[in-house]
């Protein structure tokens, strides 16, 4: 994989990871261009496109676009699953993740990504072990920093979101929906909604 981008429907970059040395200027140009291309695509269109010499695989979850650029022989479908797995990981870590989680804790999102992908290739496909590694790092840190504080486990009662209330309303305000909630519920995506209902029961 060449790079991964997360950006909002409004065209705001939320996360970027480059796996091939690219100059700053070139990065900005590519980000801008690709955002334009992807945001212009309609929901019924396919998730793959050929862009420059790359293949771009993207998927929209709620208000967030996950966008990966892969090379010639790479498998598009598995890249789509890779995005999905990353969302699963985020979801599991944050507990019903939404765009706000990623905005306010983007460094955490980076840590998870680094644990999942290394140098652009899948490092650990096991959800459990990725989260274990992250948790381990979190735990060690927090032991040093002070008493173990439980990671925020958000329940379905999301009205208590601290960031939500303080955010001004407006068109530019990212709508804090769970990524799952608006994720396209194609028949091929069993885990997402299931996970949601499981959490809901908690």
């Amino acid at each position: 994989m060449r790079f991964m981008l997360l950006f909002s429907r409004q065209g705001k970059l939320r996360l970027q990871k480059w796996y091939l040395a690219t100059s700053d200027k070139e990065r900005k140009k590519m980000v801008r261009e690709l955002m334009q291309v992807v945001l212009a695509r309609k929901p019924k269109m396919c998730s793959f496109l050929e862009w420059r010499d790359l293949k771009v695989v993207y998927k929209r979850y709620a208000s967030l676009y996950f966008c990966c650029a892969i090379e010639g022989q790479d498998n598009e479908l598995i890249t789509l699953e890779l995005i999905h797995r990353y969302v699963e990981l985020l979801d599991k870590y944050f507990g019903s993740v939404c765009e706000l989680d990623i905005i306010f804790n983007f460094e955490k999102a980076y840590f998870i990504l680094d644990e999942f992908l290394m140098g652009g290739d899948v490092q650990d496909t096991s959800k459990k072990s990725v989260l274990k590694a992250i948790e381990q790092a979190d735990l060690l840190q927090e032991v040093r920093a002070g008493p173990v504080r439980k990671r925020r486990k958000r329940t379905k009662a999301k009205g208590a979101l601290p960031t939500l209330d303080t955010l001004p309303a407006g068109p530019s305000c990212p709508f804090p929906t769970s990524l799952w909630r608006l994720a396209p519920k194609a028949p091929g995506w069993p885990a997402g909604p299931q996970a949601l209902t499981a959490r809901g029961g908690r």
Partner: protein
Amino acid sequence: MSDIVEKTLTALPGLFLQNQSVSGPAAAKASFSSRLGGLVRGITALTSKHEEEKLIQQELNNLKATVSAPTTTLKMMKECMVRLIYCEMLGYDASFGYIHAIKLAQQGNLLEKRVGYLAVSLFLHESHELLLLLVNTVVKDLQSTNLVEVCMALTIVSQIFPREMIPAVLPLIEDKLQHSKEIIRRKAVLALYKFYLIAPNQVQHIHIKFRKALCDRDVGVMAASLHIYLRMIKENSSAYKDLTGSFVTILKQVVGGKLPVDFNYHSVPAPWLQIQLLRILGLLGKDDQRTSELMYDVLDESLRRAELNHNVTYAILFECVHTVYSVYPKSELLEKAAKCIGRFVLSPKINLKYLGLKALTYVIQQDPTLALQHQMTIIECLDHPDPIIKREVLGEYSYLLDKETPEEVITKLYKLLRSDSISSETKAWIIAAVTKLTPQAHSSNIVERLIQEFTTSLDTCLRQHAFELKHLHENVKFMKGLLPVDKSCEDMVVDASLSFLDGFVAEELSQGAAPYKPHHQRQEEKLSQGKVLSFEPYGLSFSSSGFSGRQSPAGISLGSDISGNSTETGLKETNSLKLEGIKKLWGKEGYLPKKESKTGDETEALPVPQENIIMENVDQIITKNDQSQALTQSKEEKEKQLLASSLFVGLGSESTISLLGKADTLSHKFRRKSKVKETKSGQTTTAENVTRSSFSSSSNVTYEEDYYLDNFQDRGDKEIKKFSLNSELLDSESLTELPLIEKISNCRLSTPSLFAVNNMEVFHPPQSTAASVANEISLASSLLEETTEHMHSDLMEVCHNETISVSSYKIWKDECLLMVWSVFNKSASELKSANLEIAPAENFKITEQPGCCLPVIEAESTRNFQYSVQMEKPFTEGNLSGFINYQVMDTHSVQLEFSVNLSLLDFIRPLKISTEDFGKLWLSFANDVKQNVKMSESQAALPSTLKALQQELRLHVVDIIGNEGLLACQLLPSIPCLLHFRVHGDMLALWFRSSCSTLPDYLLYQCQKIIFHYRLLQDIEYNSLWYTLRKLRPREVKY
């Protein structure tokens, strides 16, 4: 009890300390993390980019002060880093923090170190010099006993590490391959993989260790090692054939579900691993029957197992099919794989369909019958809303070629075209496909039939495609160059600008084809070929009687009316002109024509129907136009016009011919042109109105001589340019001095005005013609008033034989088009009863100017025949044909036929109106066309863009207000068209209005063409594409 007390007491300090440590940093942390939150919220609340810039700049200044302050703790530094990352992500420069990120990674505790490493990995790139400072930290962390620290070090190494420092950490990482924890081993393997990618030589000695990793008891480590193997096998598959068995075994185990459940993804066992293995097997088994045989079983198993209807199984299936088709073929497997492809193609999911179509391309190479099975699906896909799918399908048919002849395929497509069930857009795609196939076909009966049938199609888009095909078909060599066989599977041309077409559009034009007009909906498709002509007839034009009416009192009174308005206009100019605003304003005051009718009442004392008034209005404006022209026509004005005319020539068909390398008889032309000037002296036109004739006064003589010299330069230029073009392009200094417009012409290599404007050396004509030149210069003052006063085209030969040569040029007079045919007698004897006749054409009214029938043409002299051409019916492209006959030495009569192309552009004239009138007229027109065009430069480019348009299309720039520009022109005799340009960002919004429905379309097409060339030049300037361009021969310049 005491025990308890004691315990409590002993615990107290700890608790106390703990509390302190919690409250202190935790409070700080809270305040800092809320600072990030505050920043994010602050940005979200802002409405403009400018405000955001201000806020971020302020934030960055704060951060700069904080990170460099000695009192800043590492904890605070961590928070600062997070905010810096955020600012960088928004696109702002936070380079002052890079060094602090490294420091944080070096000095911080785990919590801070992790952020420090993250910041480093996000801020720096592989060759950044600061990265060297990180090496020591990495080495230290790799030696740490803390697992998390080692993990972090390995992660950063695999992301970003200076190549030259690899030896410093390599032994440490090698050691980690034996680490007891699998997570460390796995990361170590991936770090080595990264090293292998950036410096393969450095890790050569540890290949044996990779094998160990492949056999690791942990699946994760094994999977990680596959990355290295995939890469190594890709480079040299023969060296790893011995591993085939191992890979097959691993895959069997995976497929058989022998892995821990942890590795399942949605109940599919380790899909990433499977795909990796399949790719490796595909590489190993390529062209190797023995190796391939080892894997047939497992491939079969993979195909069978993937029955679950889930995306991930399709991913595996897709890879599996790919592998089956890359290894040594086994018919049974191929058949199964083909069936799987069918599942993809037939899937309602667009992603799968897309991949299925892609897979078909390589399936067809093996077995075209399969594609025939899916033919209907493919055709259905043509109707799919996603253009990507269509592009894929287009490629499909060229693959059928492997087994079928192109003729058969074309026949099939032709049948499809004739069926009524498919949409016209699809048909257009099919024609495009046929176009691609045509160069490979040997016989072209069907193509010809298709062309015949669809050039008369009612659908403009189809017709356009058919015309394209037709003209390409006429020039097979060009076509083959354009659509090379090996590239036939790539999509044709996805170029929103018309550049691709420029070459052969010009060719078409020169061959008498009708020019195309844009079809707006096609723009979205980004089909450069989607620019289609509308062949609808124009609305009824105003008869030329409108011109006779301009001497009427109405015209005069309006003229004064307008002059009165000019103050008002001046006022208006201070405000930014918003057309919407005007609309409202006039809406309140009453509809514009009503106001107009007041003027009408004054003069004609009769209420006139609205349309008439508008016409009247237009006529009046034209009158005013004439008047003002007459008044302001100074030397400068003429210079401008001349410049424009010569520039316009660059756009004309002749220039493109030379672009295609046909202008090789230049010296010949040169002489003829000289003659033309000479002979013209005898013929004065009477069509000029009185005001104009006063301008051929002696004051102009010097100027005209200048011009004449320029003209010679021009003629000579073409020759010179042929040879000196390269050096010319190299001369960047002279280039930058040139106005942009000249650069356009320069770029197109055909506009003669380059040297003249650039004040370069005067070209000296060859000796042989020097005498006549001198002669002509002396005559010039009286001769050239016609030509100097009006813009005119280059001389172009229309026909010739051994005795005579007929050339023609156009003079774009204000009220009509004046065609001049000059007949040059090459022979040594005189020609008798020479007669030139122009066949009546349905769209034109042709008026013979005096002196058209000449009894005698002397030896080696030139005679001119002039015709004024009026447009009677709007058209886009017309043809004037005629013949000349003469007698040589009283013996036999010879007849020569010729024809000349006329385009609508020949009848476009500037419409000089005020901003005020523009506003009025704007509201009165019903037909409008809007289009957005991308520009490279915003704002600043508007005036120059407009200038380019003004000069090339003969438009009148009414006004430029802020980021808006107003232009006006008229189609002779009197159809006005108003153009509105607005720049926003890098988009130029074009908005055209006219009383004629087709004129805006046509102008839009022309404008886009010019804007595109203009943009291209800017790109050239800024991206120094010059160098590339220089290397290309003119006709190869495809943008």
